[in-house]
């Protein structure tokens, strides 16, 4: 009884329940929705959001926010084909290089936030603008269709019938959940997010942890960029844009406080699935764009009413 009650007070669990409920109802009422292939496809889409939102979760838990994730995805997706060296038949070198760039961008975000004392929101916003400039230089001139075999494998392969994107997400989820719940650094992020001053006086290094959180956010955004590239076989400017607000939305829908200090990636996971589900539901409705937009907004609000209830302050 007590376990059940505390489960219902648990935002991640509630959000999972909500996903299940929406899926069951939609499967019974909408043709094609409940098909195995469709649900699998939804998860594949959610994987991208889920992976970006992994970094976003960490940064938000720590009391910051990362407005550069969309730009990092785009940069990774566009640069990867350009920098994949021809001598490497596996394509892993290209992936490593692209991830290094994404991670480096994250590190720079963190450095700006700590050494330059620029609030993360401003730092990452400015970074997104820089990256736009970078794209103006590199984009458009040369091929951005990907031929990197590892990337294509990531985007297309289905070992045991499971899309590799979902497998990647699972791996990311395990790592992030471990980090948040089983590693000291997770507790430090949370403490910093809830009370940076007290955390600092308790020996938690603000500099180090800010650097780590932003670097990880860059890395995960880079991973998501590679996955998106593989799924579309093509990178173009703007490919990452939709993931900025959705990554934040997934985090908050999962019950994590936007102000930091409270929450878990376990909530972000169903949060990401909820978002793609809502999009898919609205896509199949035949209505004018205006009405579709209204329905989408209302749906998000309704879902929030259920999953966000315990997220009150």
């Amino acid at each position: 009884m007590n376990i059940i009650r505390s489960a219902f007070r648990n935002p991640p669990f509630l959000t999972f329940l909500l996903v299940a409920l929406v899926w069951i109802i939609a499967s019974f009422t909408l043709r094609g929705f409940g098909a195995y292939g469709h649900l699998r496809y939804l998860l594949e889409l959610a994987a991208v959001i889920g992976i970006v939102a992994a970094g976003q979760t960490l940064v938000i838990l720590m009391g910051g926010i990362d407005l550069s994730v969309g730009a990092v995805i785009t940069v990774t997706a566009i640069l990867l084909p350009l920098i994949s060296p021809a001598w490497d038949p596996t394509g892993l070198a290209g992936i490593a290089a692209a991830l290094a760039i994404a991670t480096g961008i994250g590190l720079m975000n963190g450095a700006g936030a700590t050494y330059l004392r620029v609030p993360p929101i401003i730092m990452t916003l400015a970074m997104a603008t820089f990256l736009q400039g970078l794209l103006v230089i590199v984009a458009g001139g040369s091929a951005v269709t990907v031929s990197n075999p590892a990337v294509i494998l990531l985007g297309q392969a289905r070992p045991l019938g499971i899309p590799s994107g979902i497998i990647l997400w699972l791996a990311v989820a395990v790592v992030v959940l471990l980090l948040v719940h089983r590693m000291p650094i997770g507790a430090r992020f949370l403490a910093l997010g809830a009370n940076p001053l007290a955390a600092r006086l308790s020996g938690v290094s603000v500099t180090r942890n800010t650097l780590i959180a932003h670097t990880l956010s860059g890395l995960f955004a880079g991973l998501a960029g590679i996955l998106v590239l593989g799924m579309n076989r093509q990178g173009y400017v703007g490919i990452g844009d939709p993931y900025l607000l959705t990554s934040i939305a997934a985090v908050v829908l999962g019950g994590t406080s936007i102000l930091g200090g409270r929450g878990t990636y376990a909530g972000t996971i169903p949060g990401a699935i909820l978002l793609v589900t809502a999009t898919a539901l609205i896509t199949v409705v035949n209505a004018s764009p205006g009405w579709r937009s209204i329905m989408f907004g209302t749906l998000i609000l309704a879902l929030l009413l259920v999953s966000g209830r315990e997220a009150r302050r």
Partner: protein
Amino acid sequence: MNTNSSSRLYPSIQMRRNRGLSGLYLVVAAFLILYAMLFPGILSIGGFSKFTQNWFPLALVTMAQALLMLNGGITLAIGPLVSLGAVIAATTMEGALGVSGGILAVAAAGLAVGAATGAIVTYLRLPAIIVTLAGSFIISGVALILLPRPGGIVPDWLSTVLAGHTPVAFLMLLAILALWKLFLATPLGLGIYAAGDNPVGAFRSGVPVERVKVTAFALSGLLAALTGLFVAAQTGSGDPVIGTPFTLNSIAAAVLGGVGFLGGKGTMRGAICGSLLLSVMINVMFFLGFPPVAQYVAQGLIIVGAVAVPELLCAWRARR
């Protein structure tokens, strides 16, 4: 024997709030001077009018955003609200409602949408960022239904009055700032700060925290919708997606102006300065002949620099 008891309290409190903004003021002043050197025409009435007209909408949405951030909230629905305001203006003014009816309709829509959003956030205790994200889709949808593609019309004389070759927009900005000052001098207005900074304490002090919050959202909605009205007048018509970029820009300007995310921290004048910097930067870079790449890079550098340089100087001074 309060040292300042001779001077008057209100102005000295206002002066105090300026502290810490001097770095930003300097940066903005430098840009304005540079701009005037590159384009002396700015010093003419016409040039000044046009420049301030282009800045005005951003200034207004920044106020709309800062108002909520000071109260510990945030909105992602600014852009769509601007679009909605523009669309309502462009579809009603030439119709039965007329200009005054149209203005009322825009104002009423802004207030109502803002208040409704505020009520949802406050009474259902949901995170503002997602409620307003959902709201942004709903509001965009309404704008698209009212006007599925750019069109509609705003009477020419209104366009000329608000956005002609006279600095009416600038005067309106001054008037709105004066109104804000006035509002801040009411218990409800100061309550925005108090409730944003320390809601529990404010509640225990007798501030009607929930009413303050809903009011903040309503006023923010009003400002955003009126921005749409101005944009419609400035452009002579309505466009259902014209406001979209304002959402992020309003946040950028407010944060650049020193308004914090957690509520209670920052000032409106700082936010306005932030918006002025973002706006004048565009013109300065044009006159310096920066190519687009440099525009992006410089924009990023200026944003970081405007925050980092005063911070670092401050830290450096403290160290010695």
